[in-house]
C-alpha cells in the first residue's frame, strides 16, 4: 500500500475540525432538514390508495388545506372545518400560554423568595409531574373533571349543583389539560430569571413610594421579561402542535391541528394533505415566533442596556 503524502498542519487541522463537527452536521441533515424536506416533498405528491404516496406531482394536498369543493354542487369554498381547527388551535394555545403565565408567575415568585435550602424542594414538586408519563398526567386531570369525577362528586355532595357539569370533552377541558401539562415549562425559565433578580431592587421600589402592584409592574416584570418570553415560547409552541392532550381531553370531537394531521396520516389516508398541514403548522409557529420576538425585542431595545 502506497503511503499517503503527509498532510500539511493546516489541512490536518481542517480535517479534525470537520470530524468534530460531523455529529452536529449528521443531526442537522438526518434529524432536522431531512424529515422536513421529505414532508415538503410529500405535500406536493398524490395520496396512495392505502396510505403512503404515489410519485405523481399534485397540489391537491395544499389546495385541501384551505379550500374544499362542495360534493354536490362542485362549488369552490373555504375549508371551514380546517380553518375552525386552526383557529381553535391558535386560540387554545394562546389561552394556555396566558393561563400558564397567570399561574406560573406567582409560583416562580413564591419559589424564588423561599430560603435557598427549601427552593430545591419546591422546584422538585413542580418537576416531578414533568417526569411522569404525559398520558398518565392527562388521565389524572381527566379523573378530576369528568362527570363522575372528583369535582362534580364534591359539588353534588355539597348540593351546589343538581347535575354534573359537563367539563370533559370540551374546549375547557383541553385548556385545563394543556395548562396543567405545560405549566412546568413556564415555571422553570421564569424561576430562573426570578432567582437572578436582585431583591434589593424590589426594596428600592418600595423605598421609592411604589406600592406592591407598581413594584410588580415597574420593577419585577421588566426584569424577569427574558424568562417570561422564553416560558411563553416553550408553552405556546408545543401547545399549538399538541396531540395527546386534545385527543384525550377533547374526546375526538374537539380537534386541534395535531389531531387533524394524525387523522390524515392514519384513517384519512391522505399523506400529502397531512404533510401540507404539518408545513402550515410550522409556518404558523414561525410567524408567531417572529412577531413575538420582534415585539419583545423592540421593548427591550427601549429599556435594554444599550438603549
Amino acid at each position, binding site marked *: 500500500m502506497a503511503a499517503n503524502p503527509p498532510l500539511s498542519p493546516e489541512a490536518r487541522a481542517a480535517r479534525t475540525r470537520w470530524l468534530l463537527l460531523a455529529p452536529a452536521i449528521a443531526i442537522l441533515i438526518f434529524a432536522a432538514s431531512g424529515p422536513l424536506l421529505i414532508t415538503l416533498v410529500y405535500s406536493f405528491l398524490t395520496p396512495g390508495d392505502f396510505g403512503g404516496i404515489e410519485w405523481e406531482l399534485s397540489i391537491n394536498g395544499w389546495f385541501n388545506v384551505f379550500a374544499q369543493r362542495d360534493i354536490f354542487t362542485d362549488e369552490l369554498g373555504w375549508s371551514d372545518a380546517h380553518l375552525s381547527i386552526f383557529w381553535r388551535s391558535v386560540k387554545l394555545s394562546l389561552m394556555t400560554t396566558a393561563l400558564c403565565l397567570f399561574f406560573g408567575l406567582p409560583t416562580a415568585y413564591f419559589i424564588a423568595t423561599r430560603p435557598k435550602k427549601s427552593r430545591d424542594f419546591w422546584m422538585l414538586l413542580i418537576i416531578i409531574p414533568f417526569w411522569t408519563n404525559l398520558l398518565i398526567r392527562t388521565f389524572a386531570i381527566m379523573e378530576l373533571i369528568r362527570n363522575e369525577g372528583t369535582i362534580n362528586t364534591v359539588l353534588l355532595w355539597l348540593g351546589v349543583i343538581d347535575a354534573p357539569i359537563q367539563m370533559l370533552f370540551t374546549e375547557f377541558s383541553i385548556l385545563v389539560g394543556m395548562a396543567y401539562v405545560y405549566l412546568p415549562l413556564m415555571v422553570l425559565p421564569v424561576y430562573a430569571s426570578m432567582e437572578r433578580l436582585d431583591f434589593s*431592587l424590589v*426594596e*428600592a421600589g418600595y423605598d421609592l*413610594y411604589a406600592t406592591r402592584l407598581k413594584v410588580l409592574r415597574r420593577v419585577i416584570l421588566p426584569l424577569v421579561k427574558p424568562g417570561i418570553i422564553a416560558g411563553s415560547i416553550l408553552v405556546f409552541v408545543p401547545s399549538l402542535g399538541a396531540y395527546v392532550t386534545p385527543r384525550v381531553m377533547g374526546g375526538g370531537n374537539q380537534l386541534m391541528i395535531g389531531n387533524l394531521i394524525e387523522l390524515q396520516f392514519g384513517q384519512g389516508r391522505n399523506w400529502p394533505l397531512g404533510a401540507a398541514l404539518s408545513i402550515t403548522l410550522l409556518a404558523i409557529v414561525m410567524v408567531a415566533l417572529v412577531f413575538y420576538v420582534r415585539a419583545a425585542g423592540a421593548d427591550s431595545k427601549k429599556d435594554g442596556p444599550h438603549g
Partner: protein
Amino acid sequence: MTTAISARQLRKVYAGSPPVEALASVDLEIADNEFFTLLGPSGCGKTTMLRLIAGFEHPTSGTLQMFGEDLLALPPYKRAVNTVFQSYALFPHLSVARNVAFGLEMLGKPKAEIKATVGEMLELVQMSHLADRQTSQISGGQQQRVALARALAPRPRLLLLDEPLSALDFKLRKEMQLELKRLQTETGITFIFVTHDQEEALTMSDRIAVMGTGAIRQIGSPRDIYERPAERFVADFIGDTNFVPARITAARDETADVILASGRSTSAHLPQGGARSGEVTLAIRPEHARLVGAGDGLLEGTISNIVYFGTDTHIHMALEDGTAFVLRRQNSDQAQTPIATGDRAGDTFGAQTAQVLRD
C-alpha cells in the same frame, strides 16, 4: 431642636433556630438636620436599625417615631424616608434619568415638575451629562451619585445610607465623604449613615452611635467618641488604644485620681455610670503618650519594636507588668532622643488624657 427619629426600646429578633437577636433594646433620638452615624462591626445591628426605619423589617417590640408620627403603622412606600443601598440597587432596565425620576413618578408628580427636579438632582451630583446612559454603562462612583440623586429627588425628610462608600476605592471614597457632607448641609435633610469604617464616621458625622451586639454602646460627637470612650468595646473599635490597669484612689464629678501599676499616680477622666473606686482599666490613645527617659515616666518598660510610618513612628513597649503599650512620635519633632529596640524607657501622658473605662 426638632426630633427626627425617636426609638424606644426597639427590639428585633429574627426567627430561626436559634433565634437571632439583632437589636436588644435600643433607645435613640436623632435630631432634625443631623448627620448621624451608626458605627459598628458587622452583625452589630446597625443595618437592622436602618431597615426598621426604612420599613423593610418590622420590630419585635418597641416604638419608632419620625417627627412625632408613628412610623411602624406605615408601609415602606408611605414613609418619607429614602435609602441609598449598599449595592446602589439602581434599576438596570431604566436610564440614569429614569432612575432618578422613579420616586417622583410613583408619588404622581406632574411631568414638568419631575423633569425639573431630575435635572436639578443630576446637577447636584454632577451627573447631568450622563442622564441618558444606562446604569450598566457608568462607573461605580457614578452609580453611587445616581443612587444619591434618586434617593434625594423625592425630597425625603430622612435619608438612610447603608455603607454607600464601601465599594469605592480609597481616593473616590475620600471625595464622596466630603461630597456627602456638602449635600447634607445643602439639602438640610437628616442623614442616617451606617458604616463599619471609623474614619468615615469621624470625618462626616455630627454625632455617632457606636453599636455592638445589638445595642448602642455610646453616643456622642466624633471627638467625644474618640477621646472619651466609655467602654473597652468603643475604645477598642475606634482607633488604636492602650489598655492599662489602675486603681482609683479618689473620685470627683468627672475626674478620678488613679494609681498605676508602676506606683505613680495621675488623674483620669471618669465616664458616666462607671466605677468610682477599686480596680479599673484606663484607655490611653497612642498619640497622647510621650516617650521619656527611663525613670521619668508614669509607666516604665522596654522598647520592643520601632515601626516607621512616614508621618510618625510607632514605638511598641513591653511594660514592667507585661502589658503591651504603643505610643506615637511625630517624625517632624525636633531634637529627638535616638532610641533602639531593647532600650529601657518611660512614657508619660497628660493628666485627663487617660480615660477610665466602664468595664
